[in-house]
């Protein structure tokens, strides 16, 4: 065998992948150039390189819409996402624990109940949801949003957790029982740490859904001081004219923290997804 395994075929493959990666970058290119275009040019020459680079677009976009700055909107998004994900991890893992470790019929029934929750389209229930949440004073604030998302995504969290937990050997829990630990302690000290791989999956999947959601946030937060990033961005799209350069500048600002987070945590995510339970 040769000492180097770099062959012409490998070179071709490498070039192909680089090209593919470049194609991936095209939207980012347009995102960047449109974000710095002067107002008029967005319509006259949308695809061309900007004649003058207007960095002031970012400042204007930062000022936000509807009286809510983009910074506040970003904070609102973070509050809603982090709040929802934390609540989902807590409630989802506990519920799934009960379901997965219950040997009676009720365990199976509860499981089916949650799985059905994944399938049913929540959009059908929007009107009653809205009116009941409004009468509870939960429309137009972050807590309401967290409650809503937690309810909608709990089935998925329970489903993911229960599947993992069913495959988790009982030995650890039995050892802890014999070692004299109570139920709460067994769950939080023994079971929950063992769930780390699923917890990462649940956090990423539900976090992405909440962060990217537009429909529900528009309905429940539009025009309030609690409006989140997607709603704030939509504020630039008026009835008669859409200020696309503002929208794009706002998008640039909003993806910055996510991008930073990914770059920072990439390695740990990979571990979370690929690593199972090893004793």
């Amino acid at each position: 065998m040769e000492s180097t395994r770099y062959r012409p075929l490998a070179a071709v493959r490498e070039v192909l992948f680089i090209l593919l990666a470049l194609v991936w970058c095209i939207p980012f290119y347009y995102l960047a150039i449109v974000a710095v275009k002067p107002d008029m040019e967005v319509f006259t020459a949308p695809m061309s390189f900007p004649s003058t680079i207007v960095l002031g677009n970012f400042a204007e976009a930062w000022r936000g819409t509807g009286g809510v700055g983009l910074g506040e909107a970003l904070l609102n998004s973070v509050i809603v996402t982090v709040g929802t994900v934390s609540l989902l991890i807590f409630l989802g893992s506990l519920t799934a624990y009960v379901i997965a470790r219950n040997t009676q019929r009720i365990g199976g029934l509860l499981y089916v109940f949650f799985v059905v929750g994944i399938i049913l389209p929540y959009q059908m229930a929007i009107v009653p949801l809205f009116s009941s949440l409004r009468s509870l004073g939960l429309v137009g604030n972050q807590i309401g949003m967290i409650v809503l998302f937690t309810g909608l995504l709990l089935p998925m969290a329970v489903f993911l957790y229960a599947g993992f937990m069913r495959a988790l050997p009982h030995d650890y829990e039995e050892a802890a029982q014999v070692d004299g630990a109570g139920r709460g302690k067994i769950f939080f000290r023994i079971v929950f740490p063992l769930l780390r791989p699923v917890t990462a999956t649940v956090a990423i999947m539900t976090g992405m859904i909440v962060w990217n959601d537009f429909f529900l946030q528009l309905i429940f937060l539009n025009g309030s001081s609690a409006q989140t990033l997607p709603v704030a961005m939509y504020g630039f799209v008026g009835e008669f004219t859409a200020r696309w350069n503002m929208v794009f500048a706002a998008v640039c600002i909003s993806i910055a923290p996510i991008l930073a987070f990914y770059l920072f945590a990439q390695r740990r995510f990979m571990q979370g997804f690929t690593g199972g339970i090893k004793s």
Partner: protein
Amino acid sequence: MSSVVYNQVSKFYADGTKAVDALDLQIAEGEFMVIVGPSGCGKTTALRMAAGLEDISSGELSIGGKVVNALEPRDRDIAMVFQNYALYPHMSVFENIAFPLENQKLSREEIRKRVEGAAAILGLEEHLGRRPKNLSGGQRQRVAMGRAIVRRPKAFLMDEPLSNLDAKLRVQMRAEITRLQRQLGVTTLYVTHDQVEAMTMGHRIAVMRKGVLQQVGTPLELYERPSNIFVAAFVGSPAMNLLPATLAATADGLALVIAGQSLALPAALVMRLGLARYRDRQVIAGIRPEHLVPPGEGAATLPALRLEIVGSELIPPEQLVQLELWTEPLRTPSALDIVRDVDPVAAADLPRGSSTQPLVARCSSDRAFANGTADWGVVLEKLHLFDFETGKALGLSDSASAGGHGR
């Protein structure tokens, strides 16, 4: 430290399996009791009932004189070592050993002292900061032991704790666990299917089969006075030779007739086993491999069986000589069933419809044997006789067969 007592304890699983059937067993304070038996005989179930991890269907189980049927595992104050150790993978060795103490609400300082003490006993001091997955099998085994001994529980329960180790380590840990148990004096219930472990580690051994306790006794008692053919075949390696035979009356007493060959039984043996009642009846004769004496050795008066030598297995300083006897082999349903339990591989090898009965003799490796027929002496004083139908040992009073009281 306390006694553990099973009083008519049974376990039925939901699917109707009777895993443990009216188990009566007393483990005295500080005693090392080994439960042994073939796979699926209910050993694990019996142990898990003591731990509280399995409900008791009927009967009473007491630890330290207190009935614990309704107690949660954590209220029983027992420690358990699992077959795969069940070390908490996300905790360091220190945290693993400290976990039972944490639950007792001890001070941080006290916990550290006790964990370090346990680690010192087991030679784990250097590994306290490591995760279980970075330990060798033997070290993991020690951590599991550490988690058990750190708390001074009322009893240790161990379910095949050595089965995941390689042969050499197993021998070493066997000695280590035995030494530790004797040193700490904690009542111990130890489950294994390895009869060598059972013979070497326990003060007493309880042999189970299909959920039923067969016999309880010291290793020597089981070896010398097995109460039925199952215990006879299960204890000892290689297993006892079991042959169909008839007790025939002769001019001067009783003779054992095996495949047409008559061996006059000593009067003392006839008396001791009360064989008069069995005159002209079929029995099962049991001869340990070391009680077959090679041709030309031993006293000339030794009664002999004419056997065919078919091969030998040299394990210096001894050898196992394979012999054959031309006779219908022992094929009663219960005997076949037992062979299957004791040695599934051998059961599969049993030639269907063959008419030779295999035997094994154990003798010194100094001598070479040529294939062919020869007269092998039989030490009749050490002969075991069993009822042909029930498989029960002849001449044993019923009380000696089961139960067992104290040490």
